[in-house]
């Protein structure tokens, strides 16, 4: 990065943060602080929903995932449009009608205090830890590649987002997310345009022939992680949990002048989310083609990690792998060119033979890449052997002109800040409304004190996230564990909301115990799959199973308890 890149990066990041802070510095009304301006339009809400969902992982890791495994991941989003329609029809009108600040307030009004506290606690637990991951994940990649200090990167991004989120609450989050999304769209389109100029004419056909463009898979196989069916059903429940019951999303769309604004904002996402994700995974598939024709394509994209081993006493092993890879990579390039020529010639038999030879060369190249990972693991058992997260950033730093590099690094930080701001805003709100006001009911009527407390809670969650991100850096395998924990906790929470909306005869005690039982059931199912991998099912399927378990348990427990299961609604 040169001075121009730094100017673009710091100008964009600090400029948006300063603008958001300054514009919202006088926000002292609780409703505005927690829900945003009453005149917030549908486009702002739509962009805010999109910005909160898409973190840096979306823009940094997804192209790498498509580079490695193709476009199948896009099926993960197939349940999203239908889920958003359900949120518009069922969830949003109820939240708006009751005028709640949080989704869990509704549980208190529908059931009782303990169910409300259960929902709020599940949210705070998983989202509080996730907020740490949201800043850690991009910081580890960017600091590794750019040579920055990891702790300072985490602290800088964490403090920056705390400043404007605490100052302006939801208003600042909505305002900054709009501009951050503009930076993100601008940067990603620019990177794609530059990439297109570097690709051969047959890039799409090459990617397709090498198995990178398989976007839809109708195979009815429960063990495959991403298929049309797992995306439609599992993705539907996952999206329903996230958009309908996760306060970081609910808070984005319950504001606005009218119900119309929230609905149109969600429909904006229902229409544009899949095309946007398609664009990102296509970028990854095109990066794959680009690197097939690059003579200096690295065998392992995390070059900082790789170089440290090349320059170590065991460097000879790693240099030998590099040389081996350059030979198979050159052979692969020759085979691809031969296939393109055969295809252009129109001879089916010749084309088929060339395609087989190309597949063989690809297999050989993949085998050497695996050999590189094995060598890293053998040299250092703690080494990070997944390098797909480094594919896009390597392209950015080595292929894009100065200025655009700064813009793309700004994209990564903008996405981290925008999703973290949404999370902190929701954590501060839930802590204030569902916990603090519950335990201090008399103080609930003091508006200034409520706003002050919401600011304190937002700041404390921000500091907790920074602290957790710094801790994670010394215990990296926690990330995977936490992602699993988050995906396991969602189904029971959604199950409680489904019972609340659709099973009016079920009371608080029944649903409370059913949620706990469903949670244990999902956990047991997940652990069973880990102990007996032959019976493991794709994690997306845990969502419909967990929701169904919670609903069935609720009905059964209600039948057993009868009227004793009916409890008094939360008075606050």
């Amino acid at each position, binding site marked *: 990065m040169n001075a121009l890149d730094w100017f673009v990066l710091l100008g964009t990041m600090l400029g948006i943060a300063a603008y958001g802070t300054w514009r919202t510095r006088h926000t002292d009304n609780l409703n505005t602080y927690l*829900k945003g301006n009453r005149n917030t339009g549908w486009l702002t809400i739509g962009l805010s929903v999109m910005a909160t969902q898409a973190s840096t992982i979306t823009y940094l890791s997804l192209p790498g995932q498509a580079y490695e495994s193709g476009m199948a991941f896009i099926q993960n989003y197939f349940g999203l449009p239908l889920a958003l329609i359900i949120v518009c029809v069922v969830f949003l009108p109820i939240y*708006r009608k*009751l005028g709640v600040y949080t989704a869990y307030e509704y549980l208190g009004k529908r059931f009782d205090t303990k169910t409300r506290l259960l929902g709020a606690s599940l949210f705070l637990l998983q989202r509080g830890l996730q907020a740490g991951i949201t800043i850690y994940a991009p910081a580890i990649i960017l600091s590794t590649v750019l040579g920055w200090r990891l702790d300072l990167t985490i602290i800088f991004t964490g403090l920056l987002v705390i400043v404007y989120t605490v100052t302006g609450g939801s208003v600042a989050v909505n305002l900054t997310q709009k501009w951050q999304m503009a930076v993100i769209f601008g940067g990603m389109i620019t990177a794609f345009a530059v990439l297109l100029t570097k690709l051969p004419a047959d890039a799409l056909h090459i990617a*397709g022939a090498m198995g990178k463009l*398989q976007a839809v898979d109708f195979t009815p196989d429960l063990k495959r992680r991403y298929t049309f069916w797992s995306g439609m059903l599992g993705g539907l429940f996952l999206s329903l949990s996230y958009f309908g019951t996760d306060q970081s999303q609910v808070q984005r769309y319950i504001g606005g002048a*009218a119900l119309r604004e929230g609905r149109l904002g969600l429909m904006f996402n*229902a229409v544009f989310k899949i095309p946007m994700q398609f664009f990102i995974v296509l970028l990854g598939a095109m990066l794959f083609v680009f690197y097939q024709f690059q003579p200096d394509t690295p065998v392992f994209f995390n070059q900082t990690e790789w170089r440290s081993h090349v320059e170590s006493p065991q460097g000879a092993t790693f240099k030998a792998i590099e040389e081996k890879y350059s030979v198979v990579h050159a052979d692969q390039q020759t085979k691809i060119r031969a296939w393109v020529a055969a295809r252009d010639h129109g001879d089916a038999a010749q084309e088929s033979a060339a395609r087989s030879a190309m597949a063989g060369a690809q297999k050989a190249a993949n085998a050497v890449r695996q050999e590189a990972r094995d060598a890293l693991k053998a040299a250092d058992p703690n080494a990070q052997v997944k390098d797909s997260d480094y594919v896009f950033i390597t392209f950015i730093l080595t292929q894009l002109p100065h200025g655009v590099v700064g813009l793309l690094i700004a994209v990564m930080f903008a996405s981290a800040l925008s999703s973290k701001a949404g999370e902190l805003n929701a954590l501060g709100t839930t802590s204030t409304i569902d916990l603090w006001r519950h335990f201090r009911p008399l103080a609930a009527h003091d508006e200034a004190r409520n706003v002050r407390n919401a600011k304190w809670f937002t700041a404390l969650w921000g500091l907790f996230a920074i602290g957790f991100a710094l801790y994670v850096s010394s215990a990296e395998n926690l990330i995977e564990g936490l992602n699993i924990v988050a995906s396991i906790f969602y189904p029971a929470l959604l199950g409680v909301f489904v019972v609340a909306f659709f099973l009016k005869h079920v009371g608080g005690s029944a649903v409370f115990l059913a949620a706990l039982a469903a949670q244990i059931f999902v956990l047991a199912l997940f652990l069973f799959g880990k102990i007996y991998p032959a019976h493991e099912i794709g994690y997306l399927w845990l969502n419909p199973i967990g929701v169904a378990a919670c609903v069935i348990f609720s009905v059964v427990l209600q039948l057993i308890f009868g009227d004793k299961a009916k409890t008094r609604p939360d008075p606050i």
Partner: protein
Amino acid sequence: MKPPQADPPDSDEAPRVPGFRHWRGIYIFVFAFFVLVVVLLAIFSRYFA
């Protein structure tokens, strides 16, 4: 302190989107668009396979 602002009971207003008089029309359009996207993705996968 002012209570949180709730929508009046009859606030399920028209979408005010050109070509759509009811929300149901918007939802059908969004779902149809999704089906179209999946069909196009399936054709895309098949064409370039």
